């Protein structure tokens, strides 16, 4: 490499320094340090440099920016107000202050706070996340994050199996199909079966009789997605479902959109044992699928707290009895318990949990309620206006939040394609992802980023198209 001063990110790559260090170590060249690697597998410099890696040479920052700008510019980027799509990740407004705080180097470049005394601020922030999330969920213990809601669901099912022994888990047939796939991946090796309970398609609410019929003795947990991410329905039978689960000694797991809980009964009021959720609406970008924030919480019960996966920050004291924070209940975790750990999770989504804390702290109770109401108003307004032009849906007529299903009476994908040309990203063609939908169904979504003009604009475009 023709770099005399070394590479900017590798301070000791400066030739003179490297030589000095090698001399001190007492070797002739750097290859001597690899004398324990079998020669036949050492890769030659020529071969390595000829591999298809990057542009086959180092680029300077100006060159890099040209390549990356190109990659970013060759996409159609829809402004959030031109996106009417949800289904598990939603366009939201991210306050400038949230983004600023997220890039503070002391947070961004820190590791897991293994040395408590030098990372108190980071831990206090995570503790505040856990605390605010506990209040929002009306649960008692929250971990400092899982990867995303889907992996939270997988972990919740494994946790139920640790507590109740192996059996079956009841899940709604309209569960987000991505989450269902993940739940299946986590469950299968342990012989845990996922059994689907029916949704009354007319209302979108769960079929209580069907659940009762399926409540065999080997059901270890019952899951509710709340709201259902692929229909938008907030289930009126949520509480009844929990009661049925508990009658049969099964755990009740509730998966939420945290913002909706400013309006609807939170998992705590539904008597959930485990609450999970997707934290993406709390200040995180869409980023084509991640990273997001897996919420995971339990009630204050011994068996639940002890079997919980993931890292938890707790409040304690230092040697002078001042408040201090520490990682707690670590004997559940892999670095201590290895094969007996409650999960293999290590790297999680801490920075995103901190971002959620910044977001909730900035909006406060009132601001978060404003956002929840904004989502309700906009989605209900759009639904009402669509009905006026005959685009209601005879199905899924129950209470909904943010997302709702529209029967467009012709192939929704064609409509969506037409809208793309108008600069609008319209909804999810449900039939591409779930077997219970038909080609004419689209899942539309509205959030606080859409003002009335944006909604009227898209409604007009739909009208023209029909």
């Amino acid at each position, binding site marked *: 490499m023709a770099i005399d001063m070394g590479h900017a990110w590798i301070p000791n790559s400066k030739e003179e320094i490297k030589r000095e260090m090698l001399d001190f170590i007492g070797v002739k060249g750097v290859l001597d340090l690899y004398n324990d690697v079998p020669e036949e597998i050492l890769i030659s410099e020529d071969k390595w440099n000829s591999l298809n890696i990057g542009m086959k040479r180092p680029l300077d920052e100006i060159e890099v920016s040209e390549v990356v700008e190109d990659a970013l510019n060759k996409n159609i980027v829809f402004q959030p107000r031109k996106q009417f799509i949800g289904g598990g990740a939603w366009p939201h407004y991210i306050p400038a202050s949230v983004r600023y705080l997220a890039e503070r180097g002391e947070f961004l470049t820190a590791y897991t706070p293994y040395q408590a005394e030098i990372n108190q601020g980071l831990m206090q922030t995570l503790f505040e996340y856990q605390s605010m999330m506990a209040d929002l969920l009306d649960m008692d213990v929250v971990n400092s994050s899982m990867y995303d809601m889907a992996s939270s669901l997988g972990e919740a099912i494994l946790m139920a199996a640790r507590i109740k022994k192996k059996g079956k888990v009841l899940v709604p047939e309209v569960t987000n199909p991505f989450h269902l796939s993940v739940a299946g991946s986590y469950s299968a090796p342990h012989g845990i079966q996922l059994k689907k309970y029916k949704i009354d398609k007319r209302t979108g609410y769960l079929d209580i009789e069907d659940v009762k019929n399926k409540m065999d003795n080997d059901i270890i947990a019952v899951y509710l997605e709340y709201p259902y991410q692929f229909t938008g329905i*907030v289930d009126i039978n949520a509480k009844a479902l929990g009661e049925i689960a508990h009658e049969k000694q099964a755990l009740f797991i509730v998966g939420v959109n945290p913002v909706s809980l400013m309006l609807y009964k939170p998992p705590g009021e539904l008597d959930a044992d485990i609450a999970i959720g997707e934290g993406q609406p709390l200040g995180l970008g869409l980023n084509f699928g*991640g990273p997001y924030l897996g919420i995971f919480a339990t009630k204050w019960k011994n068996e639940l707290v002890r079997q919980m996966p993931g890292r938890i920050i707790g409040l304690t004291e230092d040697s002078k009895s001042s408040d201090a924070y520490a990682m707690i209940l670590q004997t559940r975790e892999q670095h201590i318990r290895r094969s007996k750990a409650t999960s293999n999770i290590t790297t999680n989504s801490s920075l*995103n949990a901190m971002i959620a804390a910044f977001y909730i702290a900035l909006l406060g109770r009132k601001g978060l309620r404003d956002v929840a109401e904004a989502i309700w108003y906009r989605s209900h307004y759009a639904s009402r206006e669509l009905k006026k032009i005959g685009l209601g849906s005879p199905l899924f007529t129950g209470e909904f939040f943010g997302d709702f299903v529209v029967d467009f009476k012709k192939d929704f994908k064609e409509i969506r394609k037409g809208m793309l040309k108008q600069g609008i990203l319209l909804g999810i063609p449900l039939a591409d992802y779930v077997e219970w939908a038909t080609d004419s169904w689209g899942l539309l979504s509205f959030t606080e980023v859409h003002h009335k003009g944006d909604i009227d604009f898209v409604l007009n475009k739909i009208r023209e198209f029909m």
Partner: protein
Amino acid sequence: MFRQAKWDEPNIYELSNGREGVRFSHINDTFRDIMGEISIDANMKREKDPQLPEVSEVEVIRHYTRLSEMSYGVDNGPVPLGSCTMKYNPRVALKYSSDDRLAFIHPLQPEESIQGLLKALYDLQTWLAEITGMDYCTLHPAAGAQGELTGILTIRKYHEIKDQIGVKDEILIPDSAHGTNPASAIMGGFKAIEIPTADDGNIDFDAFLAALSERTAGFMITNPNTLGLFEERILDIEENVHEKDGLLYYDGANLNGILGKVRPGDMGFDIAHLNLHKTFSSPHGGGGPGSGPICVKNRKVVDGITLKDLIPGPMIYYDETEGIYKIKWPGRYSPGLLKAFFGNVQQLLWTYVYILSLGPQGLKETGEVSVINTNYFVKLMEKYRGYSIPYGRRFRKHEVVLSSEPLHEETGVTAEDVSKGLLDVGFHAPTIYFPLIVKEALMTEFTEGETKENIERYAKRLGEIEDIARKDPEEPKKWPKNTSVGRVNMVKANHPKTLIPTWRIKILREKGLIKTLR
């Protein structure tokens, strides 16, 4: 001289004073005029409002700015946590990974509208396959441990399809491995069988042969291992594992030290995961998010099926007929997905920028200098008799595990005390008490991102600590003194009677309204 900020900063709940943070007050006025008040069935309404803080924007900014000042990352100074690969996180990569042109892309946006992004991710898939010497990669897993689970599920599927899962129920794992390995094996429905380490730091080959059997589904190895040592008999291991139709799994946590020198694929591994937040510089964010792609060899499972078909994760391919990049979601031979949607794309774009910046030459330099840094540090430490370097005199790769057992025996000062003595001069401590096979372990990894000067200062400080411990063994017990708090009381933190995981539990506890956990 180091003094960490020491704000007497209240909890956000204590700061709450009914002020407005971000102004969203009027966003619903128009709609309220049209639609009236929100109507929700009384049975569905939330009964009790959540107790969330209400603080003005300037107070929130100050609060978290102060908390950040009481935190410490690579931007503050060396963080030589072993096996964590805490290298510099270049800002040019942050610039693009936090760009709105990525942030605004919905996970289900149609493929034809995001060709620039898919091309970049396709390139990244290819580059990672080249770097590791494997054939195909999926960028799906959210972190290293999830990559491990992905790999384990692939191994499981391999044996299921070959109709031998009833027999193949054991995963072999060296006792020097990260805790995630046995935990992942268990999550994948296997038994974890531990293989001891021999005196030379390699696995005990006889014990390995004794443990290897028809029941062996796979062997997970971290190479170089957590002692920083290259597994010298890796090719013999490969031959023996494959002979029993086990698969060889590469834990990529320690790839940094062999970058550009030897590739997992060339060592005979079938499956490998990478930690983009280690080797490829995406930041750790105080614990995550990361990204843990896995790569596989084109190994035959049965006729017409190769390992590629088993991977639980999407892969990007170029569709020649349509002339566009597309995503292939897991097919019928795969267990399914591990997270929702494509992957942790911010971390992927970060890695894309990092690899572009370094190229093969820069990546090789990365590996070499990380190894030079380790061995330079080892050499500096040789003169201090309070610290030993277990497992022989071989050259280390990305990291070295020191033991402060000699100092402990002589003075009673522990590895934990030593680590607090490092904090007190503004260095982060190494990983301590790991690997479990080394007493009073100080597992140290500077990476290529550290300066020679800092490595020298670090070694010198370890020497000072040794001197202080000999003069006054009680003094190190009082450390740290210069951090925002003193030594944290871990007993109280974990005691059932004082355990406080959230603010609401603190309040309930103070009111005597909460039961004690067993």
